[in-house]
């Protein structure tokens, strides 16, 4: 059981160099791993490949042993939650409540269960007072918290967060870190955090996968476990 990238090779059609070359890494359930590296080294590209949004020219991604290329995005989405760098591009409903409910409805949960999860996560991320608000009227930080809440409410087995602390203040950054620790242990959720936030990575992540420099073609460095939590 793992989210595994095996010997990935990826080059954008108009790119001069390969973004990923013979890249392998595996992310385990119950682990909080950080994906770090310089700007433009392919971190977001890798997350999109792990989700099946981009197809590598060589190699494959296995989600608990199943080739991700054979799954639809919706099937991947039931197991892997994804929060993009720009939250505004992942919000599409007309109220915070509907945004929260969208994924839960697609999971086929009962009304009672949906309500319970919505209340819990809105409360946890301090968004209850915005329940009826239009998501695009929220600040960037609030939008990011809403997106985190909406994705976490689906209780995915793996979670990919692209720069999750980018718009968060110190207090909410700590809240997020603590919640990630909680779901990692309680739900045995495998979490991949793409981040430049060294403090966050050092404080909460157990392992750091350092991507090679932009456009480089050698293997990545999968550093040993940083710190057992």
């Amino acid at each position, binding site marked *: 059981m793992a989210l595994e990238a095996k010997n990935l090779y990826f080059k954008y059609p108009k790119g001069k160099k390969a973004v990923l070359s013979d890249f392998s890494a595996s992310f385990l359930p119950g682990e909080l791993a950080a994906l770090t590296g310089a700007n433009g080294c392919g971190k977001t590209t890798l997350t999109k490949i792990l*989700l099946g949004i981009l197809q590598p020219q060589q190699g494959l991604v296995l989600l608990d042993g199943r080739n991700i290329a054979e799954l639809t*995005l919706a099937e991947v989405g039931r197991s892997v939650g994804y929060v993009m760098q720009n939250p505004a591009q*992942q*919000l599409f409903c007309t109220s915070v409540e509907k945004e929260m409910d969208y994924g839960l409805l*697609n999971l086929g949960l009962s009304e009672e269960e949906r309500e319970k999860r919505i209340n819990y996560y809105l409360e946890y991320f301090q968004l209850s007072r915005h329940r009826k608000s239009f998501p695009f009227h929220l600040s960037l930080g609030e939008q990011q918290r809403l997106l985190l809440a*909406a994705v976490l409410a689906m209780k995915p087995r793996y979670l990919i967060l692209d720069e999750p602390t980018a718009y968060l203040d110190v207090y909410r950054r700590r809240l997020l870190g603590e919640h990630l620790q909680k779901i990692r242990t309680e739900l045995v959720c495998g979490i991949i955090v793409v981040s430049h936030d060294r403090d966050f990575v050092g404080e909460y992540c157990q392992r750091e996968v350092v991507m090679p420099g932009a456009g480089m073609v050698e293997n990545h460095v999968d550093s040993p476990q940083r710190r057992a939590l």
Partner: protein
Amino acid sequence: MTLFSLVKWDPRCKIILMACLSTLAMLRGEVWFLFGLLVFTCLLVMLGGAELSGALGQVKGLLGLIFSLFIIQCFFTRSGEPWLVIGGFTLITSGGIELACILSLRLFILAFSALLLLTGEVRDYLLALVQMKIPYEIAFMTMASVHFIPILREEALNVFYAIQLRGCELQKASWRKKLHTYLEICLPILVGALKRTRAMALAMEARAFRAYPKRTYLRRLVLKKNDKAILVAVPVITLVLLVY
């Protein structure tokens, strides 16, 4: 193989050529004429040195839309001879087919004639519009909107992926559900575009946009003999084709 290079043409020539081709496509209504015009436009794009793979990639996205419009015209236009009758109900008529062909050809001509502009730089077209006495503000807005098309496309794709990753099974969804999903995609795109417009306006004003009534330009476009000939010949030929 490149017989002539559109890249070397003055941007004003390309704008006028595109405008003339589009005008002909919209004002002439004969299938044979439009088909000939489409072949001519395609040849211009191909032989003029436009990057064909990229050009076809741009038009490919329109195929679905053109096909849907073709089907709608076929089934909903009732003029002409009946061509397909099932159970006493006329499904397709000759008039419907003709109108569908005309509409599809027009859209293809519009798309291919726009591809002529891919052979130049955006800033050259901006300069060309300004030298054609179009107010700088309008020219700038036109070019900025063209510039943002790839960004809007990227954003639309991101929302599309986000919707699916939250468990929406689009492949198995009904047409109604699919239509609803496509409408959902429009919301963040629209809001994003409005926010970006506001941010861009602020950023431009912060950098002294319109602070002085007169702008100066580092370069000026100069018409060569060939360009002048094209600027005269193309509108005249268009006028002749419209009259006869």
